[in-house]
């Protein structure tokens, strides 16, 4: 029998801002099926669209240390079919019915989603389950797909912002898997083999390592029925303990201050990125709190760094700040696009602004501006089944579903003292990692 876990409703959200959104939707609920699969379901009747999103604990962190790039390569090969489903057939079928499907690999997981009509679910879900559980990883498709991934890497590398961001990740996470690009390097991708990917697949793509999210006009019983029928446990024999990645030590508590300076030809504006390690998913409330700090600094025209650097001094073209959550330790970044000669002065103003947040309580009115902006953004980002499924999957896959809809509550109850504490705890100058990009007029050649 499926084991029903506690359920939550969107009505947990207070303050009139979000309490009555999705008024005709039922509770979101997690259910553990006999196969070990976790099913997260919410019936939303106001839409003809149904979203299925399958999250697998098989991101970069799950890669054996000697197989970098395998998680993402496997994500591509999943769509190459099974013993009973020809390569590309799944895309062909979903898109031919007017639906959409795609997949994403990150450091913590890979997820696969499809958007179809509710009436098509019984027809499409078996194929998605088949792809994930019985991927053939055919050798005949392998070399062409390797070329596709090499082209994907080349396309990423052609983006200067990507270059700076990855220099920053290397600097802040060092040898931790979070420090390497999800796609791997071209050399690493050249070394991957179909047999490696099959072993990786057998180890991780099992129902007990997956979270299936279904949001749309589908009843709970029907969702349980379909999921139980099509995601059955597989008996694949032993695991491959030798492939288990090295356990991640706790390298994230202290990062040494580092500065990576990049120079590239053909660059029209310099970039300055500053980063600090943030909380892990266990301290999610601090992560939400860092969204308030980011908004205070760069969210909107009244934000401190926007006013100071864009409007008043006019030293930069634009600036952004955000907190990116990751299971084992997120990252808080401030990114500025600016003329290269202003680099040092801009860095100085950012440091002073942060120091002020650490020494002085912010005004209640400032805090309210940020709280409103964030809570309202949250409402606007939970309108569609795809948006909801994405949020449920992200939290559900790490057993934090109950947190998925508490965002507004946590943000609303923050005080100026909380903001000061977060600035003091996380944005310490000695833990700041820097990456900068400046134009290299003298250099020629390729961006590699």
């Amino acid at each position, binding site marked *: 029998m499926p084991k029903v876990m506690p359920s939550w409703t969107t009505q947990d959200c207070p303050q009139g801002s979000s309490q009555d959104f999705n008024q005709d939707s039922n509770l979101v609920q997690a259910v553990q099926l006999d196969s070990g699969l976790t099913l997260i379901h919410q019936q939303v009747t106001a839409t003809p669209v149904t979203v299925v999103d399958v999250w697998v604990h098989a991101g970069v962190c799950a890669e054996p240390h000697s197989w970098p790039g395998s998680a993402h390569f496997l994500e591509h090969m999943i769509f190459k079919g099974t013993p009973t489903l020809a390569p*590309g057939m799944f895309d062909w079928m979903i898109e031919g019915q007017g639906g959409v499907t795609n997949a994403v690999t990150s450091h913590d997981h890979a997820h696969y989603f499809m958007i179809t009509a509710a009436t098509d679910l019984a027809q499409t879900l078996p194929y998605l389950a088949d792809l994930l559980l019985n991927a053939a990883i055919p050798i005949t498709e392998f070399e062409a797909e390797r070329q596709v991934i090499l082209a994907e890497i080349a396309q990423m590398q052609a983006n200067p912002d990507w270059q700076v961001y990855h220099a920053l990740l290397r600097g802040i996470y060092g040898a931790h898997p979070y420090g390497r690009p999800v796609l791997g390097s071209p050399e690493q991708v050249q070394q991957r083999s179909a047999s490696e990917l099959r072993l990786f697949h057998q180890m991780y793509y099992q129902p007990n390592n997956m979270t299936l999210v279904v949001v749309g006009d589908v009843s709970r019983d029907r969702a349980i029925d379909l999921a139980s029928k099509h995601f059955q446990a597989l008996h694949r024999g032993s695991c491959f303990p030798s492939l288990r990645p090295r356990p991640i030590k706790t390298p994230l508590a202290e990062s040494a201050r580092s500065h990576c300076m990049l120079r590239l030809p053909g660059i029209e504006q310099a970039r300055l990125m500053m980063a600090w390690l943030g909380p892990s998913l266990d301290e999610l409330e601090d992560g939400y709190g860092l969204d308030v700090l980011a908004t205070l600094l760069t969210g909107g025209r009244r934000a401190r760094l926007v006013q100071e650097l864009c409007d008043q001094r006019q030293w930069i073209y634009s600036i952004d700040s955000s907190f990116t959550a990751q299971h084992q330790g997120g990252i808080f970044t401030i990114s500025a696009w600016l003329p290269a000669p202003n680099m040092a002065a801009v860095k100085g103003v950012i440091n002073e602004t942060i120091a002020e947040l650490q020494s002085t309580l912010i005004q209640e009115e400032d805090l309210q501006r940020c709280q409103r902006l*964030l809570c309202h953004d949250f409402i606007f980002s939970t*309108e569609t089944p795809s948006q909801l499924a994405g949020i449920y999957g992200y939290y559900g896959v790490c057993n934090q579903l109950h947190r998925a809809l508490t965002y507004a509550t946590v943000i609303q109850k923050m005080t100026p003292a909380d903001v000061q504490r977060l600035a003091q705890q996380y944005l310490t100058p000695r833990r700041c990692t820097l990456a900068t990009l400046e134009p290299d007029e003298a250099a020629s050649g390729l961006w590699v």
Partner: protein
Amino acid sequence: MMPVRAMTSQRWILANGLTVIVTENPVANIIAARLFVRGGSLTETQTTAGLAHLLAATLTQGSAAHLPWVMADQIERAGAGLSVQAAPDYWVLSLKTVASEFETILALAAQVLRSPTFLENQVVRSQQLLIQDIQTRQEQPFMVAMQNLRQALYPNHPYAHATPNNAACLEQITTADLQQAHDTYFRPDQVVISIAGRVNPTTILDWVEQYFGDWSRPSPQPTLPNFALAPASNSPQTTLLSSNQVTLMLGHLAAAVHEPDYVPLKILHTYLSNGFSSRLSTELREKRGLAYEISGFYPTRLDPSHWVVHLATAPHQAKLALSLLEAEIAQLWQQPLSTEVSDRAKRKLLGQYALGKQTNVQLAHLAGWYECLGLGLAYDAAFQAQVMATTPTELYQTAQRWLQCPIRSLVGTESALASLG
């Protein structure tokens, strides 16, 4: 197949000629609005290239009633969003807010559209930022290829600078030019206000009447500059850029939205270049691994649009990729698609159309946009019916009319481009 929700919008015209459209959608306690003003880049001449964008950038920089930061303060304290963009055929003010703040923000939007002040220092700053954007686009091979293609397709038409590309022109624009453009085009009979969300249409209409009803309509009506579209250049457009890939882009002038070939060209675009199961993705990516992203676009435009496919590939594969791209386009006018293949493309197009009508922002946009383009709300259903009714023969004849002479726009290193001949 993806069921399509019919749009249930209501429409009114105020005494001063302003159009109001309201789409009720009670799902969430939020309201999105789009305020369209007809014109956009179509109001520019060659000497005023970039004016539409500069006007959009400066509209929110202060009004008769509010200094710029006071305005920003009001918007952000309400936790709302308000921005103005210039598009090829219109300007649009976008706002989103929780229902309880809507009236305040609508009043502010009226200030922005009706009485901007164009402060000298704000105009200069906006000019600098737009010029910086022009320079930054030079970092991106795709943007360079797109710019070259536009120049070739529209030698004498403002769509050539629908994304600003001329810093010298931008610098010449004065606050007086902005004021004059505003006086000419920002008037109630050129405005469509489209609102979607948890609303009471009667209340909404009252508010729009209150904040926009006394906006007087001068005479005569503005006329857009007239452009005779010169023949497109047919020589390849190239730019050398230090890059590890070659960007290949093939473009054609294509039907404007009011022409009968618009819908068939949409279907052909969907068939050839939209999604993982598209013809190009299957032939070039799946089978041969030539590129990661193979895509295309055919934007909806009042004047002749462009029908484009593009990819980025390794230099040693560029020649093969280019010949395959050209061959795949040629097939469209050499022989008709089967009924089964064309039906699939139609279902795909309609499914994506349905998925584009989910959020309040999307609903407000679509209803207002159709009105602004002169298509009206009925176009929502008419478009879908026309898609269903299009035959493979019509697709084939449309391809023969439009897709026979692609213009190449190529970006890569000197040696890579030399190898393409």
